[in-house]
């Protein structure tokens, strides 16, 4: 075990995979100079240099600014024997490669009757909450949940980032990873050995009996802080991080709601057709009869992201929103009981 940042954990998973399999390559803008911090030498940098010194330019591919071409090249390479990790830097840039991601990456295996496999990982970071304005703050993972054929991971801790990314790289299907930039500096003890976290297995960060909070990406930390505060009021909160949205661990969510009877879903994406909406619908369809109160979604509004720190802050779910929501759906019961 050693203390790793979220970003360091991503770099560690990439290094492990590069060492384990020669077919793994990294392709993207500014990966050679380690601009985004996941292709650097880290602790061994003095002796070994960065990834480009360790693995050479054959496997560390610094690209032109051509997202569509990069993603298409990775797709073709994945179909013919390589296992590319594509660093797309900002999630907002995925739109430049929308055709390749949706029409080629997601469809080719199915469309060609299983002849193709697409072992590629498309990494991007969501730079929300950092005053980068509307062109760099996107949290677009729900759009890709709507493209069957892609798998999607949204890790919220360094350990999860390392274990899930390793699984993603070793997997034979295309994976999109959405990393919250505000979590990059988050540190914790992480296993230095190779480990793999399976997709489709949620992590229950905290057990509770009154309310289930399903939280995504950075919202997990807001939810945990809210749970701590609510505990002092005698409200017991269960916090679940699905970790992967495709596949989604429906069972963990449904079991929890069947137990608590209340659900709050929190995520930083926009409200309409978001992951929160999808999870809410699944719960309403499957365990409606367990619900003691209406489901509450806490999301970003259907609004663009403004630049000014004083304007941006209010756009994402925070601890206070979560506390208020939980109070609302638990209070009613208490009132009922008192009456």
């Amino acid at each position, binding site marked *: 075990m050693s203390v790793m940042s979220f970003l360091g954990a991503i770099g560690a998973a990439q290094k492990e995979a590069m060492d384990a399999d020669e077919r793994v390559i990294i392709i993207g803008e500014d990966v050679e100079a380690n601009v985004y911090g996941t292709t650097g030498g880290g602790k061994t940098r003095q002796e070994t240099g960065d990834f480009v010194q360790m693995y050479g330019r054959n496997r560390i591919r610094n690209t*032109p600014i051509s997202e569509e071409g990069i993603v298409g*090249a990775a797709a073709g390479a994945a179909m*013919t024997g*390589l296992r590319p990790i594509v660093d797309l830097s900002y999630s907002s840039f995925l739109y430049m490669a929308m055709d390749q991601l949706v029409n080629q990456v997601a469809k080719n295996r*199915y469309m060609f009757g299983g002849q*193709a496999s697409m072992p590629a990982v498309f990494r991007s970071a969501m730079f929300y909450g950092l005053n980068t304005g509307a062109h760099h703050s996107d949290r677009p993972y729900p759009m890709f949940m709507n493209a069957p054929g892609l798998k999607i991971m949204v890790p919220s801790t360094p350990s999860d980032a390392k274990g899930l990314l390793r699984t993603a790289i070793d997997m034979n299907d295309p994976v999109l990873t959405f990393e919250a930039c505000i979590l990059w500096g988050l540190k914790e003890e992480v296993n230095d050995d190779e480990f793999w976290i399976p997709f489709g297995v949620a992590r229950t960060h905290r057990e509770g009996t009154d309310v289930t909070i399903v939280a995504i990406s950075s919202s997990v930390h807001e939810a945990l802080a809210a749970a701590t505060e609510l505990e002092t009021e005698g409200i017991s909160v269960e916090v679940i991080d699905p970790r992967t949205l495709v596949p989604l661990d429906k069972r963990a969510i449904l079991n929890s709601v069947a137990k608590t009877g209340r659900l709050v879903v929190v995520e930083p994406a926009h409200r309409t057709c978001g992951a929160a909406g999808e999870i809410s619908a699944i719960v309403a369809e499957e365990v409606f009869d367990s619900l003691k109160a209406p489901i509450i979604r806490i999301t970003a509004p259907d609004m663009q992201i403004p630049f000014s720190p004083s304007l941006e802050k209010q756009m994402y779910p925070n601890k206070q929103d979560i506390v208020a929501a939980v109070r609302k759906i638990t209070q009613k019961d208490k009132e009922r009981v008192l009456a």
Partner: protein
Amino acid sequence: MATLSREQKIEAQRRMLRIRAFDERASKMVKRGHIPGTVHTSIGQEAQVVGATMALGEKDYMSGNHRSHGHPIGKGSPLGPLMAELQGKSTGVCQGKGGSLHLADFNVGSLGESGIVGSSIPIAMGAALSSQVLGRDTVALAFFGDGAANQGVLYESMNMSGVWNLPVIFLCENNQYALSTPAHTVTSGVIAERAAGFGIPGIRVEDGQDLLAVFDAVSTAVERARRGEGPSLIEVVTYRYNEHSEGLRLGTDYRPADEREAWLKKDPLVLFREHLISVEGFSAEEMDALEAEILAEVDAAVAFSENSPWPDPSVGFKDLYTDSEYAA
């Protein structure tokens, strides 16, 4: 000048005849409702297709577009599973999930035809990247039209392949129209000359009905790519004899009345048959026999398809991922 042996020339004619006979049959079947949807034929463009595919080796890769049957046929894919795919049968090369627009036969290096114009160009670049990283000597070729030549992704691909010296050939099938739109009305400059901007060779084959001219140009590019000298752009000028897609009836005639007649006089199958007789000394009877043989091959492919069952409904829910089935 790269040349074909006598045997290779007969093989080339065989493949051109296959494309013609397959597409003529497919055209009829669409109009009779025996093939669902529509098809885009390569009738008239056979020399451009086969001149290119004959220049590729068995293990070389290729990607293609909506005008899709000629490419796998030219690369040597058997006709039965292709016809079954057009009909949506279980024995189709993609199990009935691709159809005419999305043929793929990985056994012959066909990485897939794309219904999205221009979209499969970087796929060939990626296959070339695999070759380079893994130290294989395979090359990849992307077929696309004059219409696709105005998609930005082509230029991203030419740039990236150029700077990395990737073994890829960008082959523009300039049949002079993108659906109803004449190329000269939407294309600034000459397509082949755009290669110069990327410091890679750009070759224009003015007579794309001449199989040997196409073969020569593509062979030169393939050899160059195999030597590790990087990509080339080849523009082949040709003509489609049929409508953009079968059954399409456009209200206005966007092609001059005498234009098709002029190109019909340069039918690549007739031209190459004459070459085989006059230069290679085959007899007219031998050529007739070859043509009859191919018609029988197409009959057999149709029979294979007609006799094949529809796919089981469960097939519609398979192959999305490698490790899990669809879970509603």
